[in-house]
């Protein structure tokens, strides 16, 4: 095996995607709303996410025609139809692969993937982890409702052990994935978690994700009112939620509720009353830490009882993206050969190798 140094492309954020000019009319939420009737169930958490996305996309300042939403299959995957951008409602689990091809072919697009817990983590698990490790320039919104909605209520790969559904009448036996832990383990450069009903937090996280160059994975806890209603009620409820949520703020100690903190204890993290904590042991959040170890440990604070749930950006680091590097290799090959191939270059290629001439 030989290895070689790669060119290091330096684009940042959404650089390369055309922006709305100063003389252009300001884009509004209406510009991003398609004429299609939204057909999710009444009370579905997807409505809140859609409203937030339609509301904040104009603020990104990117031209509407340069934004593409790619989805897979599932309730959330209807998302692209309701946005007046380009979109593809693809097939089950494959959106990250399709989006990878699109993002690599087109530097001038802001490419989004909308997926769910079944779509991303079950049938599409392979494409998801490979998109994450490659760090393709994608923003992935993973709607996690811990259930299969579109197929009417079977357990999903994020359902708790023992979940009783039509396909598991005596309880599911498989260990669920923690999507944040999975993404961190798959070398993701941006991982965050937010809640469908917290419009402000959702918008902040999505904006940071959209500005991230590389794959940004945002897990959105989303309520399914039909098949898994109240799954996140303990953290949505103002009183019970306050004591359980750990809002991650870069550079700040990680607090749970008002009077608990996260401390190092041996190799793991635990939550203790602030009054009992040695100040030196209190975990200070660092989104840009080179190693994902602490972010991973924070993700492991979750448990099915929602005793403490970190929310916000777990990790946000800069690493060259797959698509930038692939394009840099093509550009580099052209530059070192004196520019894009001409007709004469193609003729030379066809005449390459050992040739011989037959004269008439």
């Amino acid at each position: 095996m030989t290895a070689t140094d790669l060119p290091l492309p330096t684009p940042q954020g959404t650089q390369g995607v055309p922006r709305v000019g100063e003389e252009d009319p300001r884009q509004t939420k209406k510009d991003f709303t398609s004429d299609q009737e939204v057909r999710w169930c009444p009370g579905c958490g997807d409505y809140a996410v859609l409203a937030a996305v339609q509301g904040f996309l104009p603020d990104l300042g990117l031209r509407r025609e340069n934004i593409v939403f790619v989805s897979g299959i599932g309730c959330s995957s209807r998302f692209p139809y309701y946005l007046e951008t380009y979109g593809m409602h693809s097939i089950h689990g494959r959106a990250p692969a399709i989006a990878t091809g699109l993002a690599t072919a087109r530097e001038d697009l802001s490419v989004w993937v909308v997926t769910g817990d079944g779509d991303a983590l079950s049938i599409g698990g392979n494409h998801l982890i490979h998109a994450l490790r490659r760090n393709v320039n994608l923003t992935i919104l993973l709607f996690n409702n811990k259930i299969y909605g579109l197929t009417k209520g079977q357990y999903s790969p994020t359902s708790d052990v023992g979940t009783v559904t039509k396909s598991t009448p005596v309880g599911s036996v498989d260990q669920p994935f923690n999507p944040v832990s999975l993404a961190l383990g798959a070398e993701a450069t941006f991982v965050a978690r937010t809640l469908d009903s917290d419009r402000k937090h959702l918008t902040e996280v999505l904006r940071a994700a959209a500005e991230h160059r590389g794959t940004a994975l945002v897990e959105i806890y989303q309520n399914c009112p039909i098949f898994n209603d109240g799954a996140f009620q303990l953290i949505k409820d103002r009183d019970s939620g306050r004591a359980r949520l750990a809002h991650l703020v870069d550079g700040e100690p990680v607090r749970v509720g008002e009077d608990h903190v996260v401390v190092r204890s041996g190799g793991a993290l635990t939550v203790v009353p602030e009054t009992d904590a040695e100040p030196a042991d209190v975990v200070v959040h660092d989104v840009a830490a080179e190693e994902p170890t602490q972010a991973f440990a924070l993700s492991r604070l979750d448990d099915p009882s929602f005793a403490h749930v970190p929310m916000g950006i777990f990790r946000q680091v800069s690493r060259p993206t797959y698509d930038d590097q692939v394009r840099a290799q093509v550009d580099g090959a052209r530059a070192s050969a004196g520019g894009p191939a001409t007709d004469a270059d193609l003729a030379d290629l066809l005449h390459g190798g050992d040739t011989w001439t037959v004269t008439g």
Partner: protein
Amino acid sequence: MSTKPLQRLDRVVIRFAGDSGDGMQLTGDRFTSETATLGNDLSTLPNFPAEIRAPQGTLPGVSSFQLHFADHAVLTPGDHPDVLVAMNPAALKANLADLPRGATVIANTDEFTRRNLAKVGYQASPLDDGSLESWHVHGLPLTSMTVEALADFGLTRKEKERAKNMMALGLLSWMYSRPLEGTEAFLRAKFDRAPELLEANLAALRTGFNYGETTEDFAVRFEVAPAPMAPGTYRTLTGNQAMALGLVTAAHRSGLPLVLGSYPITPASDVLHALSALKRHGITTLQAEDEIGAVGMALGASFGGALGVTSTSGPGLALKAETIGLAVATELPLVVLDIQRGGPSTGLPTKTEQADLLQALHGRNGESPVAVIAPQSPTDCFDIALEAIRIATTYRTPVIVLSDGYLANGSEPWAVPELDDLPGLDVTFATAPNATGEDGQPVFHPFLRDEQTLARPWAVPGTAGLEHRIGGIEKADVTGHISYDPDNHDRMVRLRQAKIDRIAETLPPVEVDDPTGDARVLVLGWGSSYGPIAAATRLVRSAGGRIAQAHLRHLNPFPADLGEVLRRYDRVVVPEMNLGQLAMLLRARYLVDVRSHTAVRGLPFSAAHLAEDLHRDILEVEGDTAGPATTDTPREEVTR
């Protein structure tokens, strides 16, 4: 100059055979290149095990390379070798059955040890026990001759032994009057950074050549005159190389970037390798996490306005089926290269077969028509790649290209085309709304079709005012909105089919080769069996039989006049390396009583066997009026 007498031959078939690690493929490649430079027509058949290094000296580890070259047009790698180079007992045993009596065997006696003989079940050495007396056997200690020739080199014995394939190549080059310059240049490039290995290989090559000249073991030298070929510049290409060059040329002429999504699989990986080296030509290659990811990436690139291509073999085509269906529904261009191999399942990864035809046509859920085309020779892969891109971009449809292992690895001379002689490829994207909405404002209807082709507009992201959503769920005709309307679904299913059917309007009529004009039997093939079928046809005709031949490059849709052509004949024979898949399609479509000739041995058809069967067909159809059976010695049958 040689002092030995020269004997002129019109054709020769040589098979180099040895252990997987003996470098037989390289030896064959170099001999091919030397032969091409001399102006012979040629055809090659590499045949190697799926194991990278099977246990040394065993039958499963035998790797071979067959080359047929002649002073006239060559159609196949030849049914039977005139010369077998056997580097060990396993190579002899595995190949002897293909060797007609009277043929020449050159065996490396150093490897005929008791241990190696026992490995393949020889009680005694066949070189000594008289069992080979019907063949001309030359036993040579190739290994020790090589080691001796390299005595002064500071290399290990093992390194010296590895040059024995160059010794064999040198000897064969002498025997058939091939020049060494090309191979010398090749070795210089290959061992650029290892001067000692370079000198050793050059010395082995020249020693082999000189040995032929000086030894009394070989009394004559042979030559094969150049074949008449149209004036022009030529090179040899394998099918996979030709496919890659065709794709690059298509990208260049369309002015679009090409994105290949691929997952390594035998025998398709060389397309990925070749294209990966052509970034300069605007080619992006993405090695995906799996076959599904690979086709997804290609389709995503197509959505973005690039030429999306994915390359695979049969098992990969199975995995890509759902995404190809998505491309059917979204009506985006997509080229899928299926370099077929023996199936089902893992099957015979390194052997050839044509058994994916029905999978290509029908291996998806729902009514999911796609264009299917197949190259008929290694260098036809160049033209078929251009045709695939033409159909995909004109009709906004997936196109499945059915090549196979025989074409992929086989090589033949290729007349390098002038760019001006190649078909143009004009691709246009939608740039403006194409309709007026109820409110009088311009709107874009993503499924408003071109009247002639029925293709929908290709509107790529980044185009203001054409924002739209596509997907796998059924869409309303014209507007592209989600639609569950029964009449709309019926209409869309028929429109997608009609669009594919309309491709036939752009296809040339079936070309029938019938020199006497009164043949009553038509032999019809598709894909890689062209060479063997044409060779069999030649045999039949040289024996006085009347037979017409036609070959299909387009499998879906068929050329418009195919039914009419089939009905002109009393019998239609369809040879295929499957159990009769095209025959089934023809019978269903045209109600013609097609006869199948099938073989699924992982190898191309034997022209001689096929000719015998065709003769029988002619006799049955013509009865007493048939011409004489084999009276002349047909040309393909001439052995040295």
